[in-house]
């Protein structure tokens, strides 16, 4: 590895990470109503960094350099512009004097949290919360968000515009909620991060790198939540555990030719041991709480898979119990489907099929989502019902937008015994 590679490694995503931090800190300093100005200042600082560093190399502490540059630019603006209309002369001199305290490490973390709470404001639509969080907290550009969420730039632009307008119009302030409100707001934040993570983890259509980045961002934000002394909330810890345990398998789910490798066939030695360790650490922490959230149960399910030496040694009885618990907290078709898969592993294939077919609105689900037919196809194959297996697998193949999945379903179709007609 030459020097440049080494530098490239150490500052992986530095700009993006730093963008979120800088916007958060400066918005705290100037107020959320000056978000546009703040974003301009931050962009400017990056332009300056790019121009200097590309020829002269990185400074000793690039993060500090960027923050300092942004801070000076911001203070210049405070001095020059009529920004301080709402402040008296003394007010803004004091503001400049205290600006330094905004750049302390704990304060930076707090600012990012405040920003996360603002972006995940409960009055915003879910899709707007996600787009806004990715842009402001995570430093993604509109086109990067569009690629990550498989949408187009105009749509994302609109969502962000709408969300920012809401924050402005309603004079949303940057704060970490407290008391009863904290719990509610935290639930929304956790949901947004959960969706964000799943977008990255499950979407097989988007390119690999950006999906990875989505998961990493969801985990970074979640870690901020769990680390804050005022929040330290068990469901956030459980959510982080869940993310770590899933992320540990990220790279073992595809082979070099981008073919899907199912859990059954994954090389367990490829699972990221460090992430598993961290996942269990947070899972244990989260267990101290009285309340059991859906995240707790989902993390427990993930952990069962992680501790099984081989697929066949998985504790399916325990998983069935966990799915039953999960259904109590969060009844949903996908969970019913997963529970049926566990039933099939317990040699109750017919019961599994019956339970899938009794999911509410199953006809529509089968017509619109590949996963139901994929599972049903496999289950009928186990029962040697080739005709039904073929029918469902063909349906799954036609419904999935993912090439990798199409290939997988085709392989299963090919593996079916030939029809005698």
């Amino acid at each position, binding site marked *: 590895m030459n020097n*440049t590679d080494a530098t490239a490694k150490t500052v992986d995503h530095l*700009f993006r990470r730093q963008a979120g931090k800088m916007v958060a800190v400066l918005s705290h300093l100037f107020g959320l109503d000056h978000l546009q100005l703040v974003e301009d200042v931050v962009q400017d600082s990056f332009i300056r960094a*790019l121009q200097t560093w590309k*020829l002269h190399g990185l400074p000793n502490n690039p993060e500090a350099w960027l923050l300092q540059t942004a801070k000076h630019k911001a203070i210049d603006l405070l001095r020059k512009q009529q920004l301080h209309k709402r402040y008296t002369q003394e007010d803004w001199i004091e503001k400049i004097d205290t600006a330094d305290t905004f750049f302390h490490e704990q304060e930076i973390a707090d600012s990012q949290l405040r920003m996360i709470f603002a972006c995940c404001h409960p009055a915003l639509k879910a899709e707007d919360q996600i787009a806004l969080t990715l842009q402001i907290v995570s*430093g993604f550009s509109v086109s990067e968000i569009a690629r990550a969420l498989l949408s187009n730039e105009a749509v994302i632009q609109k969502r962000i515009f709408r969300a920012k307008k809401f924050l402005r119009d309603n004079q949303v302030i940057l704060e970490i909620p407290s008391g009863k409100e904290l719990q509610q707001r935290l639930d929304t934040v956790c949901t947004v991060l959960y969706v964000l993570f799943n977008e990255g983890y499950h979407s097989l259509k988007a390119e690999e790198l950006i999906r990875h980045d989505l998961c990493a961002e969801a985990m970074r934000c979640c870690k901020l939540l769990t680390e804050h002394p005022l929040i330290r909330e068990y469901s956030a810890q459980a959510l982080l555990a869940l993310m770590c345990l899933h992320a540990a398998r990220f790279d073992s789910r595809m082979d070099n030719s981008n073919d899907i490798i199912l859990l059954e066939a994954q090389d367990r030695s490829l699972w990221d041991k460090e992430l598993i360790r961290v996942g269990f650490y947070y899972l244990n922490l989260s267990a101290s709480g009285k309340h059991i959230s859906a995240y707790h149960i989902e993390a427990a399910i993930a952990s069962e898979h992680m501790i099984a030496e081989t697929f066949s040694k998985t504790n399916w009885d325990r998983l069935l119990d966990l799915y039953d618990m999960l259904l109590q907290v969060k009844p949903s078709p996908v969970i019913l489907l997963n529970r049926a898969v566990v039933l099939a592993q317990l040699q109750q294939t017919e019961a599994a099929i019956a339970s899938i077919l009794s999911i509410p609105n199953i006809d529509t689900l089968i017509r619109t989502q590949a996963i139901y037919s994929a599972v049903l196809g496999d289950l009928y194959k186990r029962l040697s019902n080739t005709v039904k297996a073929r029918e469902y697998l063909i349906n799954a193949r036609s419904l999935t937008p993912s090439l990798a999945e199409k290939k997988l379903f085709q392989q299963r179709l090919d593996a079916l015994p030939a029809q005698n007609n």
Partner: protein
Amino acid sequence: MASFMFLFRGGLDPQTASPEEMQQNMHKWMSWVDDLKKKGVYKAGEALLPSGKSLHKNQVVTDGPYAESKEMIGGFFIVEAADIDAAISMAADCPDLVLGGSVEVRDVMVF
């Protein structure tokens, strides 16, 4: 060996580029400069900010050159090469070319 000047125009649009794109562009430039330095041909280089003043007859100072951003000189290198063709082949690795930027290669006059 003769000296040549590279004048850079256009390239990544910093107003719309994302932090990630800027960082990737920076890394490409760093490894290009690194490469030229290893070959011992890189003599100097600076980036130029877009703002500036122009001085005219009778001490008249005006703002900017106000060129279109893609025509604005964004920076320069001084490199050593056997001849202009060698210099041009060096410039071919400039990371901004694929982004629509250009490199003007000029002979530095020897007295």
